[in-house]
């Protein structure tokens, strides 16, 4: 996984609440067996008309937001399905950070596995950052995970909090599975104790 340390980039304002995973990546694009290539289908329903042409009013079809690496939205971003295709599509488009007042739990967790930083800020701050973002290409926003601050184009710093464990994993781009495999002995011990405590536990064979 690509580490996330500090990002200075164009931010795209998406002033919608409850942006669901079907909006982020509609189900018809889930028929892939790869993680890459989903960027072109990100927000397909909002981004393209029925003929596949770009909707000029959608933010990611406008300059400089075509190159946005930060997305700012309203409450409950990523609600709905567990599909990791949602963060994969964001990442493939180039989004590395989403700022919103709240996130749906599964989407929030999925972001961290893919080097995307979800940052929670109050609605008023999100609205302010959206105003900053609308100033265009020169209004780049910095997200510094090491110092846990967002830096507005004005230079004002806004602190954010983040789970220390997840921060550590992101900063160093660590592979969770590799980390857990180092605890195999503990898992073996748990399994043995479980066998004697719950001898009735059935096993599956097809």
């Amino acid at each position, binding site marked *: 996984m690509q580490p996330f340390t500090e990002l200075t980039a164009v931010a795209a304002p998406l002033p*919608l*609440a*409850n942006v*669901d995973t*079907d*909006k982020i990546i*509609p*189900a*018809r694009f*889930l*028929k*892939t*067996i*790869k*993680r890459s290539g989903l960027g072109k289908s990100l927000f397909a*329903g909002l981004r393209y008309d*029925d003929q596949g042409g770009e909707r000029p009013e959608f933010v990611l079809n406008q300059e400089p937001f075509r190159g946005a690496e930060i997305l700012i939205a*309203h*409450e*409950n971003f990523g*609600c*709905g*399905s*567990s*599909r*990791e295709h949602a*963060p994969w599509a964001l990442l493939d488009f180039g989004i590395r950070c989403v700022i919103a007042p*709240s*996130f*749906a*739990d*599964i989407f929030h*967790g*999925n972001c961290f*596995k*893919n080097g995307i930083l979800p940052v929670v800020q109050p609605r008023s701050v999100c609205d302010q950052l959206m105003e900053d973002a609308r100033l265009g290409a020169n209004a780049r926003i910095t997200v510094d995970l090491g110092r846990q601050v967002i830096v507005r184009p004005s230079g004002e710093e806004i602190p954010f909090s983040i*789970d*220390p*464990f997840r921060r550590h994993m992101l900063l160093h781009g660590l592979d*969770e*599975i590799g*980390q*857990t*495999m180092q*605890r*195999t002995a*503990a*898992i073996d011990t*748990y*399994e043995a104790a*479980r066998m004697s405590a*719950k*001898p*009735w*536990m*059935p*096993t*599956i*064979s*097809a």
Partner: protein
Amino acid sequence: MSAIRPRTLFDKIWDDHVVERLEDETCLLYIDRHLVHEVTSPQAFEGLRMSGRRVRAPQATIAVVDHNVPTSDRRQGIKEPESRLQVETLEENVAEFGVPFFPVLDPRQGIVHIIGPEQGISLPGMTIVCGDSHTSTHGALGALAFGIGTSEVEHVLATQTLLQKPAKNMLVEVNGTLPPGCTAKDVVLAIIGKIGTAGGNGHVIEYAGSVIRALDMAGRLTVCNMSIEGGARAGLIAPDQTTFDYIEGRPYAPKGEDFDRAVAYWKTLPSDPGAHYDTIVRLDGSEIAPMVTWGTSPEAVLPITGAVPDPAEVEDEATRAQMQRMLDYMGLTAGTKLTDIPVDVVFVGSCTNARIEDLRAAAAVARGRKVAANVRALIVPGSGLVKLQAEAEGLAQIFLDAGFEWREPGCSMCLAMNPDKLMPGQRCASTSNRNFEGRQGQGGRTHLVSPAMAAAAAVTGHLTDIRELV
């Protein structure tokens, strides 16, 4: 250790599965059951292959194909190349990694969240995960069951564990008695209407109260299924005699003395008196009416006796704009009575409502009636075994006589990943769980309802108050 403190059902299952406590509350949690389907697993198996890892506990894993499979005769195979590739990829992966699998022509095949409980694979007190947000369904048995992303699918395949932080406890208590015509689906839609789609974020929900206790397992599975629509990753119901009776005799359930020992353990699981809940929500079951959604979020829900709401009456500008967007997408005008909304399609199916009890409820309405002209109505059983049972009980014939389509099991029209989908602009009364834009097909419009309400809409051609029909 922590046994002195009164604990909730969730606390108990959590504590029982902690392999190791790491920093800042993060725990390495043991997973008892891992359900796998074709959409969210290919990249996980690929990850194992790339790093030379194996599946740690195939005997705790079950795979099935459901999202992509067509629901018409499957002996012809899958025509759509991308769907076929995803199904074939799962077939290759389960063979390579030795994972138990129900293939498409096996009568036990079905929607992953239908077959887990049906087979006795999902049991009380277990931790159950699947790369699918509706894994919350299995919580109805008194298990901690939640959806995970593909990276976590790979993590569970490789280690049989997950790194998790404990959720907060939310108690949703529904007391009183449900009025006639109201079902588990109406209960959960009413709950979501009350707490909102983000109401359960960061929580697991424990459902309790006389209404929940009186539900059969099918109803409890429906309620827990839609926990995620209320923002909660998991929903649970304390196991009781209804649960034990449901489990006994199922193919993968413990047998004989093992069953008795299991029951003894399961009886220790219900929340202790005085256990702490971070959030408590109470509903009066006797005030619940048959519900229907009018917008593109499950919280946009009203009793069927209501009318399409008016954005002009909403103060907050962003909320008003979002509501107007919903009405534009749904092609609805404020003030229209919900019962005046015509439907083009009716879908009875999905992991929410495709069990035998759901089909019986729909058949009771369909019996002796005819599907309205210009309405296409589909009945999609949740598994091959549900289909066989419905045929044996004569339900299939009732549906066919009334003009419904009787189809093969799968996710079908719940999500547009197989040939069953809405055309742009089509309006559907659906027993599924999500009414998001494009969920049932690009431009499709979804009204979420119970199976009885769906069947009622099919025979009248418009959204209908089931209480006026029976």
